[in-house]
C-alpha cells in the first residue's frame, strides 16, 4: 500500500505534507525521550539530537586588562572538557550585566579552542558581571539548524582601571634612561672641561676649503637648508651648520645666499646669519635679502634654485637638511655648473644622488654630528660622546647577542622587543 501511495496519483504536495507529519512525530519523540538538562535551547529550527549539550566551562575569571587607560576587561576561562577536535563545542558566547542578578546581554563570541576574550566596550571604573556559555550548534548553508548551550556561573564584579605605568614598555623606559643619561652625563663632563676627541669627517673638513675656493674665485656661496620646516630635526641640524658657514663667509668677505622654502625657516635663518656676521665682527656687511623666501612648493622651490644656479654660477653649494625628490635636480644642476658641493641629509633614499653628484656627503648621523664638529662647543661634543657610548652598547649587544643566539644559550633579543 505504501508503495502504491508513493507511486500513485496523489498530488505531490499532499505526499510532502504527510511525510513532514510523520517526521514531526519522530522528532517530538526524540525530544521527549531526552533526559532533562540545564541546557537552554534558543532559536531552534529543529530539535537537536540527543546528547549534544556540552559541559559548561569552569574557572571563569574577569579582570582588568593591564597596561591600558581602563578601557577593557579580559574574560578568561578553562576550556570545556568537550572542547576538542570533533567535540561538542562549536563556539563560546560571552554575556555581560551590570548587576549580578541583572539581565545579561551578549557582548561577543569566540571560536572553540579560545579561552579568553577582551571586552573593550566598557566604561572606566564601572563594575560588570560576566558569564560564558559553551555553544554547540549545527549550521547548514548559513542557517542554524539547532543550537544548544550550557552557561557558566556568573563571575564578577570586574572593572576596567587605568594604570600609571605601562609595564610592557619597561625595557624601552630603561633603554631610554640609559641613553639619555649617558648623553647628559657626557654633556656635564664636557662642561667641566674634559677634552673629548672627535674623528675626522671629511665632508666637514672641506667646509673651510669650499668657502675659501668661493673667495678665491670671487663667486657666491649658496646654502640650501632643505624643504622641511623648523619642526624637523634635520632642518635644525642644517641651520646650525649654517651659523658656522655664514661666519666663515663673513670672515672671508664672501657673499652667502640662503634661499628657503618655509617662512618660519626664513625668519630663523635670517637671525642665524645676522648673528654670524656680528660674531665675525662685520655686522654691517649683512644684508636682509641674503636670506629670502621662494615658495613652499617643492618643485617651485627646486626650479627657482635651478635658475639661480645657472645664472649666478656659485663656486660652492651646501645642501644640508631634509631633502626629497628635489635632491636630484639640485645636485645635478650644481654638478653641471662645476660648483664644489657639500651635501647631507638623513633621508636614506636621497643620499645616493648626493653621493654620486656631490663632492662630499654627510651620511645620516654625520649630519647631526656636524654642529658639534664645526663648533667644537663642549656641550655638543659631550652629547656626541654620549651618543657614541650608546652606540658602543648597541654594538656590544649585537656581537654578544648574535653569538648567544647562534649557540642557543640565551635570547638577548627579548630585551629589545617592543612588538606586542
Amino acid at each position, binding site marked *: 500500500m505504501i508503495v502504491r501511495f508513493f507511486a500513485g496519483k496523489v498530488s505531490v504536495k499532499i505526499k510532502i505534507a504527510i511525510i513532514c507529519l510523520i517526521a514531526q512525530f519522530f522528532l517530538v519523540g526524540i525530544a521527549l525521550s531526552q533526559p532533562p538538562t540545564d541546557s537552554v535551547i534558543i532559536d531552534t529550527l529543529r530539535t537537536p539530537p540527543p546528547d549534544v549539550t556540552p559541559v559548561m566551562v569552569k574557572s571563569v575569571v574577569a579582570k582588568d586588562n593591564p597596561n591600558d*587607560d581602563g*578601557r577593557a576587561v579580559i574574560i578568561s576561562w578553562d576550556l570545556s572538557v568537550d572542547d576538542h577536535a570533533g567535540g561538542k563545542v562549536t563556539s563560546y558566547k560571552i554575556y555581560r550585566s551590570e548587576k549580578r542578578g541583572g539581565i545579561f546581554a551578549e557582548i561577543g563570541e569566540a571560536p572553540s579552542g579560545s579561552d579568553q576574550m*577582551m571586552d*573593550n*566596550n566598557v566604561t572606566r571604573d564601572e563594575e560588570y558581571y560576566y558569564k560564558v556559555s559553551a555553544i554547540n550548534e549545527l549550521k547548514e548553508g548559513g542557517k542554524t539548524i539547532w543550537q544548544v548551550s550550557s552557561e557558566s556561573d556568573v563571575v564578577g564584579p570586574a572593572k576596567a582601571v587605568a594604570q600609571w605605568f605601562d609595564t610592557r614598555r619597561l625595557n624601552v623606559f630603561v633603554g631610554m634612561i640609559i641613553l639619555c643619561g649617558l648623553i647628559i652625563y657626557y654633556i656635564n663632563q664636557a662642561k667641566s672641561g674634559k677634552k673629548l676627541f672627535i674623528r675626522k669627517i671629511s665632508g666637514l673638513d672641506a667646509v673651510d676649503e669650499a668657502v675659501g675656493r668661493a673667495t678665491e674665485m670671487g663667486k657666491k656661496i649658496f646654502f640650501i637648508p632643505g624643504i622641511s620646516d623648523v619642526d624637523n630635526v634635520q632642518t635644525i641640524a642644517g641651520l646650525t651648520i649654517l651659523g658656522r658657514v655664514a661666519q666663515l663667509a663673513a670672515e672671508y668677505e664672501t657673499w652667502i645666499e640662503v634661499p628657503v622654502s618655509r617662512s618660519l625657516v626664513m625668519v630663523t635663518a635670517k637671525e642665524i646669519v645676522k648673528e654670524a656676521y656680528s660674531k665675525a665682527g662685520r655686522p654691517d656687511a649683512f644684508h636682509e635679502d641674503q636670506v629670502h623666501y621662494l615658495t613652499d612648493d617643492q618643485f617651485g622651490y627646486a626650479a627657482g634654485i635651478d635658475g639661480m644656479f645657472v645664472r649666478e654660477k656659485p663656486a660652492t653649494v651646501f645642501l644640508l637638511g631634509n631633502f*626629497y*625628490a628635489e635632491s636630484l635636480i639640485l645636485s645635478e644642476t650644481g654638478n653641471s655648473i662645476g660648483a664644489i658641493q657639500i651635501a647631507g641629509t638623513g633621508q*636614506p*633614499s636621497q643620499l645616493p644622488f648626493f653621493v654620486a653628484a656631490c663632492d662630499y656627503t654627510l651620511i645620516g648621523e654625520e649630519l647631526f654630528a656636524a654642529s658639534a664638529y664645526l663648533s667644537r662647543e663642549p656641550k655638543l661634543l659631550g652629547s656626541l660622546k654620549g651618543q657614541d657610548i650608546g652606540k658602543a652598547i648597541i654594538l656590544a649587544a649585537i656581537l654578544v647577542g648574535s653569538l648567544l643566539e647562534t649557540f642557543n644559550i640565551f635570547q638577548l633579543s627579548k630585551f629589545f622587543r*617592543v*612588538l*606586542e
Partner: protein
Amino acid sequence: MKRDMLIYSAILIIALLLYFAVPKPIAFSPTVSYIVIVLIAVALIYIFIRTIQGKYVGRRIVFLFVGIAVVLPFFMTVTQPIRLSPEVKMVYDAIMKLKPGSKVLASFDYDPPSAPELQPMAETFFRLCIERDLKVIIMGLWPQGPQQAEMALRKTMTFPEAASKNYKYGVDYVNLGFQTGNEFVIQRMGSDFKSMFPNDYYGTPYDSLPLVRNVKNFSNIDYSFNLSAGYPGTVEWVQVAVDRYGLQMGTGNTAVQATSMYPYLRAGQLIGLLGGLNGAAEFEKACNKLGKGTKFMVSQSFSHVIVIAFIIIGNAAFFLGEKKKREKE
C-alpha cells in the same frame, strides 16, 4: 616669441591630427617592434662612439631617448615573463588567509603624482578583496588619498566579476575620508576610530555605518593594507599602529620608499611589500588579474635599459678620458 608661437601651433596641429585623423588604436606587429628596438640600439651605439671621441651629447638628446623608450613600448606587442618575489607573495597569502567577512583597513597615503605606481596596486587590491568577500574600511592620511580610493573603486566596479558581487556602501565597504594630524591620527585611532572620523567621506555619521559601528580600534581589524608615497605613510603606521597596537599590516610603496621598508619586512613588522610598478605587476600576476601594472612593465624594462646604457656610456667615456689624460702627462 614668434618662433615659440610657431612651435606651439605645430604641436596643436599634430595633436588635432592624432586626435581626429589617425586610426586608433595603433599597434605595431612584432616585426616592426623588433625593428624599432634595433634602431634604438643603433642610435645608442652612435652616442657611445661620439662620447668616446669626447663629444658629449646634449641633455635634450638624452631626454629624447627616455621619451622614446617609454612611449614606443605602448604600441608594441612584446610579452615578458614576470617572476613573483617573496615579499609580494606575502601580501597575497595574507589576504587569501583571511576568512570571508574579515575587516581590512586600507589607508591611502598618496596623491596623484604617485598614482601611476600605486593606483594599479589599489585596483588589484580591491578586486581581490571583493572576490574574497572582505569588508574594506578606507581612510587617508593624505587629503587626496580617499579620492584616489574612490577612483580605484570605480575602476574596479567596471570589471564584471566585481560588479556582480553587488558591493554595498556602508555594509561591505566604507570610506572614512581624510584626517589631518599625520601620525597623531594613527595614535588616536589606536584608542578610538570614531574620535578621528566622526563622519565618513560623504558626511554620514560614523555610528550610522553598519560596517564600522562595532569597530572601535585596531583590535577589530584583521588585516591592514597601506599605500604610501612618503610622509606620513608606512613608517608612521609601523611605528605607531604595528609596534604599539599590534596591527597586522602589509604595504604598497613607491619604489623610492620601498628600499627603506626591507628592514621592517625582515623584522616581521610588515607582512608583505609591493614595491613600485614592478610590485604592482607581480601582485597582478599573483592574483591572476592582469591590469595596468603588467602592461606598463614593458615601458619600464625599456627605460631601465636606457638608463643603464647611459651610465655605461658615461663611464666608458670617463675612463677613456682619464687614460688619455695620463698618456698626455
